[in-house]
């Protein structure tokens, strides 16, 4: 099977974020990492390839720094990479991002496209589903298991509140992958070495720009959320904190 994995570079989970001067985006001088669900999507693609043969291609959009997620994916076993390289891609809405990806892969023939179920920065949870519609393919979301069969694939969808559902679907298809579908592997030293010689195709903004238009939605302002709850800080040495908290739990909240 030939599988494309859409990956995104996002600020590290613990990285403190600062707003830019215009208050419309974060300052870019933070540490980045791969969007966590995308790492699971890559792992699943590698496992499918190990079972059924084929090829795993990874794609991302963003400035030069975003190449790091592709390098890591190649080191883990992806065969080649596509980088839509321009800072302008960071500000695209989900529809335009999907249109840019569709334009960049128009000469390719994939059986499956994987995305993570959502990104840790915008959190829209839309790009994969939109991409499916643009390709004219069926999709399934929040996937926890994939089995290939003669007619196509059987996937396990996660529903809410602990429910699941198997869905049979034809190929080609787009799947959005849930974190925890598998156990992530680490890149090996030899993998990291081999990654340096694997093909990485760069796509410029100009190449795909004809495919998309103006964003259909706009972030007017980004800000630190207003607190709705009054929070009391408990301070002191660990043993003082422990005493104070137990006193509150017992005498004020009466839960002990």
């Amino acid at each position, binding site marked *: 099977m030939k599988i494309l994995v859409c990956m995104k570079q996002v*600020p590290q*989970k*613990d990285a403190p*974020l600062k*707003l830019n001067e215009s208050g419309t985006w*974060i300052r870019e001088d933070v540490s980045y990492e791969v969007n966590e669900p995308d790492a699971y999507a890559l792992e699943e693609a590698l496992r499918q390839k190990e079972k059924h043969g084929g090829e795993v291609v990874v794609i991302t959009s963003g400035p030069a720094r975003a190449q790091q997620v592709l390098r890591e994916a190649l080191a883990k076993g992806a065969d080649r990479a596509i980088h839509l390289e321009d800072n302008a891609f960071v500000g695209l*809405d*989900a*529809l335009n991002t*999907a249109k840019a990806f569709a334009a960049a892969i128009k000469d390719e023939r994939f059986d499956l496209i994987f995305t993570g179920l959502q990104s*840790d*920065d*915008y*959190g829209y*949870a*839309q790009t994969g*589903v*939109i991409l*499916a*519609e*643009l390709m004219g393919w*069926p*999709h*399934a*979301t*929040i996937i926890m298991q994939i089995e290939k069969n003669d007619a196509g694939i059987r996937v396990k969808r*996660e*529903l809410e*509140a*602990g*429910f699941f*559902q*198997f*869905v*049979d679907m034809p190929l080609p298809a787009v799947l959005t992958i849930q974190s925890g579908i598998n156990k992530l592997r680490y890149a090996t030293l030899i993998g990291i070495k081999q990654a340096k010689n694997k093909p990485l195709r760069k796509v410029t903004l100009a190449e795909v720009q004809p495919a998309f238009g*103006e964003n*259909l*939605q*706009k*972030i*007017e*302002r*980004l*800000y*630190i*959320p*207003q607190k709705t*709850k009054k*929070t*009391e*800080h*408990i*301070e002191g040495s*660990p043993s003082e904190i*422990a*005493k104070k*908290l*137990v006193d509150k739990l017992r005498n004020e*909240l009466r839960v*002990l």
Partner: protein
Amino acid sequence: MPDSILVVVEQREGKLNRVSWETITAGQAIAAATGWTLEAAVLGASAGSIAAELAAKKVAKVYAVESPKLEPYTSDAFAAALAPWLASKQPKLVLMPHTYQVRDFVPKLATVLGRTVISDCVGFRYENGKLVFTRQMFQGKLAADVRFTSESPWFATFQNGSFRGDQAEAAANPAPVETVNVQIADGIIRNKPQEVFKEAKQAVDLTQAEIIVSVGRGIKEQKNIEIAKQLADALGGDLAASRPICDSGWLPMDRQIGSSGQTVAPKLYLALGISGAIQHIVGMKGARTIVAVNKDSEAPIFEIADYAIVGNLFDIVPPLIEEVKKAMAGG
């Protein structure tokens, strides 16, 4: 025709998903602010009884959008049913709850119509004739005001818990219900969904727990779960976790709190090393008292905590266990 808001509610096996009432409340609030008309719709093979339930609320009209092909749910059928109907009906704004089902079809529906979705919103503002939606970004560390720059219909989804479902205003007289029979051509539906099921091992019910000690990434290693368990035992409470802990297999999936796990409302929720991503917070923000221990003073969990302890949980928890034991022994 005046501008209208259409709330599309969600049904599961003939029952209204209760989060839909929150979206009705949201729709009523936006209608009150903008002066736009509020209507509601429900999709299904037979949607009449839910339509009647909706008609008891303060809405101008309710649509029962029906086709035998709408059950079981598929994104293909939902988009095929709604796209032509919305294209001719032209509501200004379409609202839905941000459920897994809506996430599965609404981006497709909007794309078919050449429109966009502002998803997972937590509120709105209407100022100087401009409607702005507020949503969380960067896992809740920042918030954003987002507006539509496209033609209507506009699509927005609201996060679970953003509005109070029990505050949906009732109608003086029931709203009229119109049945809309939609045609879905053969061959449109490509996916074949099987029966919905629950994993057999799903044994722990945390929804009734009064005290929950919950661990996140800050616990670092599987062996460290033990000190959280000791604290839970000392408090007479249950042990739970955020998603990454269950993904790693350090605790079973049925101990997971959040959008993909259980939604809980204990008297006391003690969050140890949990940063407070949105997906976790939606599962526990209903707790009466939230105590958070985290070394990162900017962790989003502190936004909703009643008591904040900024520090290393490995320093705090051991003396806490001792103090709890003393208190429980009556000391």
